[in-house]
């Protein structure tokens, strides 16, 4: 029965560790780029009238929503695995 649990944890790690790294990098790159690259961030981006600074700040919102949603989708699979472990535990 521990094999299944190992598998669950591996799958969780495979999703969560990259997701966390991405999230922290994406989040902290905003203050860091504002500190170290102020000129570039104040330049106009490909969206007319919006600087890179604003664009990047706005992108944090969809980033959060997409990550939450991706985790939700992934978790359905995790829940199935948990259910299987439970079944084995009972039998």
């Amino acid at each position, binding site marked *: 029965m521990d094999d299944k649990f190992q598998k669950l*944890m591996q799958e969780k790690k495979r999703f969560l560790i990259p997701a*966390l790294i991405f999230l922290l990098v994406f989040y902290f790159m905003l*203050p860091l780029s*504002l500190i170290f690259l102020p000129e570039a961030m104040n330049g106009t981006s490909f969206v007319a009238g919006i*600087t890179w600074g604003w664009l990047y700040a706005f992108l944090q*919102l969809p980033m959060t929503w997409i990550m939450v949603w991706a985790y*939700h989708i992934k978790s359905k699979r995790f*829940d199935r695995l948990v259910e299987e472990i439970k079944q084995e535990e009972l039998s």
Partner: protein
Amino acid sequence: MNLTYFLFFICIIVCTLIITYWAAKRSKTTNRFYTAAGSLTGFQNGMAIAGDFISAASFLGIVGTIAINGYDGFLYSIGFLVSYLIVLFLIAEPVHRLGTYSLGDVICSRFPGDNMRWLMAIGAFTISILYMIPQLVASGFLLRLLLDIDYSISVVIIGGLMTIYVVFGGMVATSWVQIVKTVVLMSGTFMLSLIVFSNFNWNTADLIERVKEGTPLGGEFFLPGHLFENPVEFLSLQLALIFGTAGLPHILIRLFTVRNTLEVRRSLISSTWIIGLFYLMTLILGLGTVALLGYHTMIEADPTGNLAAPLLAKEVGGDFLLAFISAIAFTTIVAVVAGLVISATTAFSHDIYHHIIKKGKSTEKEQLRAARWTALGIGLISTLFALRLETINVTFLVSMTFIVAAASNFPVLLLTIYWRRFNQIGAISGMASGLAASLILVVLGPHIMNPDGGWIAREAVISLHNPGIIAIPIGFLGAYLGTVFSPKQSQTEAEFRRFFKKSQTGIESRGDSA
């Protein structure tokens, strides 16, 4: 106070009291009192989490901060939102699976014992009270400004209401007051944002042009650098914001109010949507204030910018809209402080009274009575404190709460759930060093030590307003060193595996297999 205001306020007070009455009939067991018996759906809980989280400081403060500082003001709200990802990925599901009523339950499921429980209870209690007092003080000023009622009367009204909700209705009433608050707050700000846009014929470029005319910063308004000149300060704040939420007891205990982890995830999905959309609207309101009123009118009314949203409402919608927005601000305050009362109550009556004093043997009836008396006591004491603190500036306590949470509760929770070698001594030293570091750093910092007007009139030893960048590593380091230098492993490998499995799957394995 004219009739419109009066009617709005009476309406809100009556509605929330009806909710409380209805909830009181349903709060007859401890399970109901502390967690609404897990009866909320994910979406309802998501609204309640947003209602618990968005304080009047967010609603009024961030609109004002954006109106004054432009871009940098908006960055504040980003941190608040992204912090929910940390909660969802690392903390939310294990907390739901391991705890029953409090964060003490979560930690004690790995490290049982009175010492650990004391520490968690004191931590949760301190954070909730530290957060509640400035909210109450701010609410007193706010109602005085908006409605022209005396500071003490406003504090007594809000303190009284929050106490009534929690004493009689427990978590059920608190949750529903918070849900109502979220609905009212979101629809109010949405309406106001639409009105702002309609004033510019739905043309964003027009709005931006007018903002540039309205602010003394001109085009600079849209560029970063007006609020945070010091890069270290800026990073430090971002650090406290993103890790703070994962250590806030009043938010985390809301995760016990749903049935299973699927609903936990749904709660956090809904709350991130609500909070994200809300902060987008505060941006519109902040810009709208500068564009329609101009910087100077706003600063004349209140130099902190806290009155930006109400002034904007008055400008675009007259007295009626102002009354409506004031009523929203009022609901916002009572919903947040009620959430803090219940969190402090749980820490005291469940952890300290039931588990430590009564050794977990008090009856259902005793527990419920203890919880109600505790809530009454906490409500009374914090109201009295808020009344005494009228002349003292306590707003720094709000940002301190996030630092304390991120430096003490968050490391201990995270390491308890995931670190195999972590032990009780590590948990205690982590909690203590995080708490001590944040308190000492704030006392040595410019909030307290300030040549003009500080409590200690001297140059600050540490120049950071937000010492998170020092305090958070100290919390983690304390936990690590405590673990490494403690003499023996308090837990066997098998015990950890059993605990870890429960935290990840909710399955309680029997001793044999693990």
